[in-house]
């Protein structure tokens, strides 16, 4: 029964005398390789030249601070809820008097952990965050020796005050 017209009859025709010589085939092969001799080389000299990541690249997370160096995260838990891999856990705490320069709002994350082995780098936490607090960056997750070390706490995730992470390319402006 014929279902479509696309079927092709497979044949294995007898090779002609010229084909049996194999020399023409070898010469055309040599031609192909010699063309590659003059092609542009694909190599990047890695440590000196680095390939730029695409702007949509999703690498290691960062917990942002605002312009005055206060943590944005309010431990609302939306990122943890949205996470399909259930990689994010956190403990919330109330901001004490005298900590206004550390946390932007009255509630903050006392503990914030992402299990980098569970994380699938989908970026849904970034989508869910209402406070501009979590972003995926173009940094690569460092390698560790044990599984436990891959649970990154705030020490690994929160950006340093004197070493800010630029996420301007990933910031999206929504308008309703």
């Amino acid at each position, binding site marked *: 029964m014929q279902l479509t017209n696309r079927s092709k009859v497979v044949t294995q025709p007898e090779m002609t005398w010229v084909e049996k010589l194999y020399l023409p085939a*070898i010469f055309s*092969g040599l031609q192909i*390789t010699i063309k*590659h001799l003059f092609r*542009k*080389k694909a190599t990047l000299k890695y440590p000196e030249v680095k390939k730029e990541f695409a702007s949509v690249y999703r690498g290691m997370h960062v917990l942002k601070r605002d312009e005055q160096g206060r943590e944005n995260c309010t431990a609302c838990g939306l990122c943890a809820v949205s996470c399909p891999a259930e990689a994010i856990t956190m403990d919330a705490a109330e901001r004490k008097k005298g900590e206004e320069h550390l946390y932007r709002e009255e509630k903050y994350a006392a503990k914030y952990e992402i299990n980098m082995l569970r994380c699938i780098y989908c970026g849904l936490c970034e989508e869910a965050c209402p406070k501009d607090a979590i972003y995926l960056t173009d940094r690569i997750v460092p390698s560790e020796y044990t599984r436990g070390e891959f649970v990154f706490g705030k020490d690994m995730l929160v950006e340093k005050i004197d070493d800010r992470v630029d996420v301007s390319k990933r910031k999206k402006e929504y308008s309703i």
Partner: protein
Amino acid sequence: MSIILFKAILVVLLFLISLGIAAYSTYAERKVAAFLQDRIGPDRAGPFGLLQPIADGVKMFLKEEIIPTMSDKFLFILGPSVFMVTTLMVSAVIPWGMPLEFGGETYALQVADINIGILYVLGVVSLGVYGIMIGGWASNNKYALLGAIRASSQMISYELAMGMSVVAILLMTNGSLSINNIVEAQGTGKLYGFINVSGMNWNVFYQPVAFLIFLICAFAEANRTPFDLPESESELIGGFHTEYSSMKLGLYLFGEYINMFISSAIIACLFFGGYNFPGIDYLGTILPHNMVSIISVLVMFGKIFFFIFLFMWVRWTIPRFRYDQLMRLGWQILMPIAIVNVLLTAAAITLFGN
């Protein structure tokens, strides 16, 4: 300057040049491979990676020397030595350029112009099998033995076709076996009897089939792809040098590249006019004799480098043969073609003269 001193200098020079070219062939091989695959290749050691062979050599020397306990120690050491010595010996009969002249005396740029030159080459090259065979046997390793057996049967099979293709050349030089005579014959006379370009009367224009057979056999003799079954990494780990380490392995790898260099030199001598180049007579009238000699040496090396490049170019183009295909090609195709070629050449010479 006595002739003996000159020859001694020539021998030392040849030795150093062979080793130098072998060392830089490893570099060139990696570079060519890289370029043909759109990569850059080694470029970290020195400018363009030119110091890479030195780094490789130092690495080879500093590696741990392992001699397997169950191996035959004497033969194990003898193997690479024999291989290296035989490969280096061939360069003695190759004329590298036109003779130099100092104070009315001529100094041939050839260590020994023996009248059985090409026979000597074939003989010494086939001695090289012993290096591989002894090494593979002494390793007491199945893979090494398989590689050695493959190497020896392959080299013996292809030597026949090689010798037959050379016979056709010998017929054209009135049966002279001296490589010097063969090269000189290609520098005189007119191409096809009427094209009058001096130094262009190359054998390849008369014997393209013999050239092709010789080239294929040279690939097989040098154990290069597509005939690298003796050391096929994917099947036999390393073939005959599986058990070798450090500089003994280095000698085998080096020997292969010297083999390649010598094969290229012989191909250039037999088929591409050796040191002859178009317009060699004209240059002789306007430049001093020694100048032309030096240019002829450079031309010779240019031809050699081209063939070394061809070896590499083919290596990175064609995959490896299956072993039965290899034997079939050698015995059932190349041999008959070579014999028919000899008969046709002989008939043509008898009928039309030279």
